[in-house]
């Protein structure tokens, strides 16, 4: 018997939480075949599951390997559901440009951020690792993204942020900039003129949502 929408959502959540990649793929195909709302499946099923994963990560029930596997299950289903999601009028998601600083190839944290943000419905423009400074500026302008997120794991690459942040702000003073990585702290945020930092992916999402909210309230007032 075909599953109801409610059952499909619960099953998708379970597949993400327990990193059942094949099951997630199978359920996504089942949802599409049954004509279920792909947007609802994504947001309530996949993102709902990833929310639980974030909680488990925060409470040290899950660590990096488990979280990566959950993201793998999420993407397996998302690849199938995405072409069936219909854009809704007035449903504007946050957009973020994301990348690892020039000279740095450590992209694990960046990839976790991408998974968490995409699961929460954000549009992520992932520039990858070892990204030339100007590429961040160009991509922000091209996509009109709300937030630029810069990652660095080494002090040698972190220093590039000091040069890059004014370059981005000069072109678009309204854009918010979040920086992260092991050498980055609140002090770096102040020193380099960024707007925020976060010590893990779930916290980055919380910070980004607060920044997006502030941005949109500010724009509404203007």
């Amino acid at each position, binding site marked *: 018997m075909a599953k109801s929408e409610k059952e499909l959502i619960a099953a998708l959540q379970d597949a993400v939480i327990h*990193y059942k990649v094949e099951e997630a793929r199978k359920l996504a195909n089942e949802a599409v075949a049954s004509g279920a709302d792909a947007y609802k499946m994504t947001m309530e099923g996949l993102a709902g599951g990833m929310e639980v994963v974030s909680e488990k990560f925060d409470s040290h029930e899950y660590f*990096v*390997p488990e979280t*990566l*596997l959950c993201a793998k299950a999420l993407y397996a289903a998302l690849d199938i559901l995405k072409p069936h999601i219909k854009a809704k009028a007035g449903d504007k998601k946050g957009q973020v440009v994301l990348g690892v600083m020039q000279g740095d190839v450590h992209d694990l944290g960046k990839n976790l951020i991408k998974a968490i943000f995409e699961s929460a419905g954000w549009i992520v423009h992932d520039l990858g690792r070892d990204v030339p400074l100007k590429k961040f500026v160009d991509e922000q302008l091209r996509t009109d993204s709300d937030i630029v997120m810069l990652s660095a794991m080494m*002090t040698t690459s972190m220093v590039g942020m000091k040069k890059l942040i004014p370059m981005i702000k000069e072109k678009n003073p309204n854009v918010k900039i979040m920086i992260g990585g092991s050498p980055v702290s609140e002090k770096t945020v102040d020193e380099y003129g960024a707007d925020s930092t976060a010590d893990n992916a779930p916290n980055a999402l919380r910070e980004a949502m607060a920044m997006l909210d502030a941005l949109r309230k500010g724009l509404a007032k203007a």
Partner: protein
Amino acid sequence: MAKEMSSLERVAVGITQRGKSVPDMVPVCPVLCGATHRFSGISYGEWSRGIDVDSFVKGHVDSLNMIGHDGFAMLVDLSVEAGEFGQEVIFPEMDTAHPNYDNPFIKTPDDYAKIKKIDWRKSGRMKFVVDCIKALSAEIGKTHAMMGFVYGSLGTLSMMRGPEKFFMDLVECPEKVIPALQIMDEVLNDYAIAQAEAGAHGVVYDNLYASESILSKPLWEKFEGKGMKMVCDSIQKAGSLVVHHNCGNGIYFDKIIEWGHPDLVSHAYVADDVDSWEEHKKKWGLATATMGWIPPGPVAMLGTPEEIEEECKAELEIYMKDGGYVLATGCEYGPNAPLRNAVRIVEARNKYGVYA
């Protein structure tokens, strides 16, 4: 005040006599590794390639003389071991060398079988490290503390697969990962012994993944516990101090002590079962000595002179009592950080780290 000690005596007493006796001053070692290339007369890229023992030695000796720290570790960069096992390594002129993650040696889980035993004596950079230890031992071995360095098998193998895929493999196909780790452990064991025999007073084993930042405790233990024990037992047997480095958050001190009996742990954050450095000292301060925890980015690199002094003072106040403490950065001193700040760390030790 106790009679003035040599740097080597200071480090030895500071580490091994914790709870029983204290040196004249707290030892200070701001983890100057890549930064010493700036004393060597060659570029960072040339320094990292490991082809010029004389310049490498000059870099460390001159930095000791000019900065005034008590000891150092022989870390070139974390890709030394991976490179010798077959991973392509990129050597930027101005940045730290690293694996080419676009061309991992292990492209599929079946490729773990490609890991073969190697002989460090016939290698490039692993042999270079041992040669540098020998040369440095002759230069400063009687006056300053010198620690060898081994990047653990989990970290090394992750560099050859790419960390993301590697972490998933640990869960999805452990039976393919474990034999590769066992081969590496044997090679690293031989390598660590060679460093001790070449004159390193201690050998650092980097167990980065033994922390809440990356792996659960059982998963870390399953993959690295036994291998680390073999290497650390050998270091001890060879007459060197066992030193661990871990700059992750929430380090599994119970497990690293159980498997790797460190005399000293160089770390940036406290153990997973405590909430503060005061608690950390109370719980773990007698079990092992601590080296840390000045933040390399915000303080050692970006800090004002006042901020550096304040941080050092605060750390010394918490941890120097009864010995068992080395004032240091929590991870490598930024290769590009101002060298004057390393001097400020030594000056702060001279001001606040003298035992009465």
